[in-house]
């Protein structure tokens, strides 16, 4: 695999986005296959010059971010981030609190306006992108509950609105909701109120909601936050099945955890810039311990977890 990343994952920030050229690191993981409806997108993308000849559909960039800049209030949060995720790949955005990783994905789905740079989804500029049915989004939440009781099924069904929009749901829609519930192991809790769920179960419901629309691209903001180990494994399995079907995934993570074998590529943000872009950094020292408390007191911390010395 030829790669412009071959010079090593140094902390420099290339002008053109790095492309995920690493092989899946987990041999037991199922290989990525092209999805049923691999639509070619509006354009070949900016970096189409180095498309792999063996599997061209894999190299199609699904997410392209070029020199993204954004501010929250007067504080610049993104200071020129480049990111490309190709079809069928799993990319993780890592970094300390306040490094801009959540802002990055929220900008991608249009929740945070960019002050500079470009975003593309499926080859279409974000501003003109309307095919939200192809995107499944899991916002950062600690709960799926709101002011009125709702069952697990009702919340997950909301994810299907990407396809049904204003029309009435049909049998196919109900079946899709069933599958999503099955996938996260919540089928037996479908009729329970979300208020009665544990933190991990809330996250499973939110993932099922994102999956109910059968998206080609899954964007998840900290899906493992506050999730017990058992639920983390369920979520990792659900994600593995999605990836096996050819779904492209962009995750914001605080640490790799049980998802590590799935991840093709890790992008570490630090102070709104890309500090590392390449294979997932191996956890070292106390970061590898399950009891590690996830607190990164200063921004330089993530470097020590990665390949950057």
């Amino acid at each position, binding site marked *: 695999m030829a790669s412009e990343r071959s010079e090593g994952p140094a902390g420099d920030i290339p002008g053109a986005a790095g492309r995920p050229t690493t092989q899946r690191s987990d041999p037991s993981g199922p290989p990525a296959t092209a999805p049923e409806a691999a639509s070619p997108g509006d354009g070949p993308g900016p970096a189409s010059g180095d498309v792999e000849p063996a599997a061209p559909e894999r190299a199609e960039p699904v997410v392209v971010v070029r020199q993204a800049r954004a501010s929250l209030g007067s504080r610049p949060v993104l200071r020129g981030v480049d990111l490309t995720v190709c079809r069928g790949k799993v990319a993780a955005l890592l970094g300390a609190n306040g490094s801009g990783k959540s802002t990055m994905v929220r900008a991608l789905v*249009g929740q945070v306006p960019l002050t500079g740079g470009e975003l593309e989804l499926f080859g279409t500029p974000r501003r003109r992108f309307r095919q939200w049915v192809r995107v499944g989004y899991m916002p950062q939440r600690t709960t799926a509950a709101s002011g009125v*009781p*709702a069952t697990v099924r009702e919340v997950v*069904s909301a994810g299907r*609105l990407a396809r049904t929009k204003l029309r009435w749901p049909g049998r196919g829609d109900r079946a899709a909701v069933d599958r999503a519930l099955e996938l996260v192991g919540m089928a037996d809790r479908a009729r*329970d109120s979300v208020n009665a769920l544990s933190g991990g179960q809330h996250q499973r419901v939110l993932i099922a909601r994102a999956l109910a629309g059968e998206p080609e691209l899954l964007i998840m903001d900290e899906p493992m936050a506050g999730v017990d180990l058992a639920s983390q494994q369920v979520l990792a399995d659900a994600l593995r099945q999605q990836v096996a079907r050819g779904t492209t995934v962009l995750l914001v993570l605080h640490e790799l955890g049980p998802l590590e074998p799935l991840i093709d590529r890790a992008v570490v943000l630090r102070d709104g810039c890309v500090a590392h872009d390449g294979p997932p950094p191996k956890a070292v020292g106390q970061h590898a311990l399950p009891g590690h408390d996830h607190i990164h007191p200063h921004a330089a911390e993530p470097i020590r977890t990665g390949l950057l010395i």
Partner: protein
Amino acid sequence: MEMLDYAFMQRALLAAVLVGVTAPAVGIYLVQRRQAIMGDGIGHVALTGVALGFLTGNNPVWTAVAVASLGAVLMELIRWYGKARGDLALAMLFYGGMAGGVLLISMSDTGSNANLTSYLFGSITTVSEGDVRTICVLAAFVMLITLGLRRQLFAICQDEEFARVTGLPVRFLNLLLAVTAAVTVTVAMRVVGLLLVSALMVVPVAAAQQATRSFGMTLTLSITIGVLVTLSGTSYSYYEDVPPGASIVVLAIAVFAVITTLAAPLTRRRARRAALEEERCALEVATHRVSATGDARV
């Protein structure tokens, strides 16, 4: 049941049923979004609309619909843009609507204190035939939106950020919900009154959710409670000559108290069972993982 012999009472009861259905049907979305107080604000603003009707000689119901809708849309815009100072802007709107209404009514020839009171707390004798027709049309609109679009409205009130990424027209639906709430306020103002209309949007929902687990069931039960209390409250007003708004709201709160008392032990038992099940599930998953992968990490 001699009260049914009077035409004014038939009209009042018909209006009461429509209020009983529409107020909780809109209110459930406001409660879901934790905006229970919004109906109150719209009620305040609608008073200016009523007064404008008196002043200009138009039907106060229609001017109230117009002004309340305008106010509701304004509140929605404040919610979008006015993050930090939004609450103050809303307060200003509420008090401005109330004060403006009282001011304009005092200026008009047809408006009197008695008239003002009937709009503030409701009245069963003042529902005219024209009012009933208007209320029917408006109530049909409210039901069409709140029941027909309940999945979409559920989604935007449950998690607005997520709903936007599904590609739903969230801004349009938010504005539609605001206007629908405003229309509901004017449907309800004849029977319940502008000051108490918000209670009928909120209290039946609050009562219903003590006993329910699903959104659909909460919607059904809150409408049932709504119809029950508006009908019995209006009837009580016929016999005791009190403003129907007051008797309806007191009844609704009584229903809330009864359901809460009955449901509390049920909820506790349910929570205990859920906790037990969860423990068992976590164990099962853990053992399943270990046996499947042979991985001792889990």
